[in-house]
């Protein structure tokens, strides 16, 4: 017993532990500490009692509706991105030239980032852009198309940046599943859809849940495209815009921290729900074979 107690500090002061110290210290000081600081700050408002910021958030007409505005964007976008990425990634799961080509091309919008996509969309989807001309030539729609400075602009930009992300993530999960499992099912007479339903889907469930969560939190914190492509005063006044305005336009860091905490809490809530429902599925190794 005494040995065990003594063993713990010795294990922690080993020389192979030293390399980890700077990174751990850095993360604690600059990730954990600001978060706790923000949490405390949100309970010490500029005026009023300790809950004043949160009371203000949930009563002010320009603050609490931002949660629904953001949800109305983030949830459909996440469903579209994951829902499209799953079948397409499944179709491309075998290593071919197409797979390499498509993954390389899809990395481009991810790497360019949302600001660049917003600028591109303003040029391309704008009233005199190519899309308006194509639609005009083909007589698909006679009125003017409005795809920028509204809800749809933000929605499309979130699909453009989010779909490649979801696709690449799901693809990396799918290619991690041993194809021998599906072949084994095929020899037992399972068709392609049966293989998908009974082999791939259960093995993918944890990865899909993770992908859904990551895609959701990304769209939930949309900022540049909501400002540049949306209507930041009205229909796309998302929660991150409210937090930004509180911090950098009103200089009320306390309120801004409170909004950031609410934002984090909503994300946590959705993630908890998704991961809890994940436990309804199979858990186990995704690679077959012995050992």
């Amino acid at each position, binding site marked *: 017993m005494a040995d065990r107690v003594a063993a*713990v500090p010795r*294990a*922690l002061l080993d020389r*192979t*532990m*030293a*390399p*980890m110290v*700077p*990174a*751990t210290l*850095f*993360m604690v000081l*600059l990730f954990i500490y*600001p978060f706790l*600081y923000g*949490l405390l*700050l949100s309970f010490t408002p500029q005026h009023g009692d300790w809950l004043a910021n949160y009371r203000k958030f949930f009563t002010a007409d320009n603050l609490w509706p931002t949660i629904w505005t953001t949800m109305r964007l983030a949830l459909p976008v996440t469903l579209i991105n994951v829902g499209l990425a799953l*079948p*397409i990634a499944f*179709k491309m799961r075998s290593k071919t030239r197409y797979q390499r080509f*498509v*993954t390389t*091309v*899809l*990395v*481009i919008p*991810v*790497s*360019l*980032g*949302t*600001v*660049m996509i917003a*600028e591109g969309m*303003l*040029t*391309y989807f704008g009233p*005199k852009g*190519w899309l308006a*001309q194509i639609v005009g030539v083909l007589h698909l729609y006679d009125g003017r198309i409005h795809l920028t400075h509204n809800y749809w602009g933000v929605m499309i930009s979130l699909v453009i940046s989010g779909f490649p992300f979801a696709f*690449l*993530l799901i693809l*990396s999960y799918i*290619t*991690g*599943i041993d194809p021998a499992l599906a072949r084994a099912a095929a020899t037992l007479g399972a068709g392609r859809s049966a293989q998908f339903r009974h082999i791939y889907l259960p093995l993918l469930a944890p990865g899909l849940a993770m992908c859904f969560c990551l895609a959701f*939190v*990304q769209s*939930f*914190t949309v*900022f540049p495209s909501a400002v540049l492509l949306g209507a930041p005063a009205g229909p796309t006044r998302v929660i*991150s815009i409210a937090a930004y305005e509180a*911090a950098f336009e009103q200089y009320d*860091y306390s309120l801004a921290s409170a909004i*950031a905490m609410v*934002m*984090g809490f909503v*994300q946590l809530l959705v993630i908890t729900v998704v991961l809890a429902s994940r436990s309804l599925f199979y858990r186990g190794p995704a*690679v077959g074979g012995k050992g």
Partner: protein
Amino acid sequence: MSATGGVAGAAPPQQRRRDRRRDVARSWFDHAWGAFLWGVMALFLINIGAIIAAVATNSFASRWLGTWLPEGWTTRWYFAAWKEFQLSSVLWVTVEIVGAVVALALIIGVPAAYTLARRDFPGKRLVMLLFLLPLMVPPITYGIPLATVLYRLHLAGTMNGVIIANLIPAAPFVILVMTPFIEQIDRNLELAARVFGAGTLKMFWYVLVPLLAPGILAASLLVLVRTIALFELTFLTAGPDSQTLVVTLYYAVFAAGVRAPQSIDAMAVIYMVVTLVWLLIAMRFVDPTQLVSRVKEHPRRT
């Protein structure tokens, strides 16, 4: 039909015909579904291409109003953008910030990855969580409290503040990319170095770093590409003298109408060229899926 083949042959002809019809229907459905998915993909890629092409075309256009192609071509917007947005200093700031972030992320990330790959210790899962969270939590969520702290410390608005902010996702990213590379290295090499009297630093420099060169290259390229495009953290912490290219682009688009759209598009093209050149270089060494999925969670068996 022989006696052994009689089992399959025993099915009545109507049922066989029904089976065949079902197979035909299923294969038709498979084809339609496949075509639909390829169509979605093609539509997506074509539109991405058109978005990029539209920006590039506009940046070279002398006048472009409602026609398929501009009336004339010019390169003067590039000179205009270079001067208006002070791109030479913005690019220099970007190089300094990205370079510092990559170097510092490697310096603190690789050793940490070494410990995490080699050691088991109480609380390891907690430490792993500490390094995973900054990659999962979106930058805006922790960026606002972080910016508040950095403002209190008078670091926000300076280059150092921007570098520190960008390190928060970069260092964990290096750790997660490097861990599998370190796990592949034979432990006996380290032990041999120790036997010959090398300290931890010497062992790192003469044994591990040369062996890890491919991993370090991959990690630094991935961090580089991500840091160039990382908007939120720089936006929240940068001052006028510490803006990177992507933040300058944001402000230009935000204040659209002040400058000619072609001039903004010229800067956008410069930004794209910078990003895509590094992306192309990175693609030679890493798998595209690594840019989003951080680690190969299931190493492929061969």
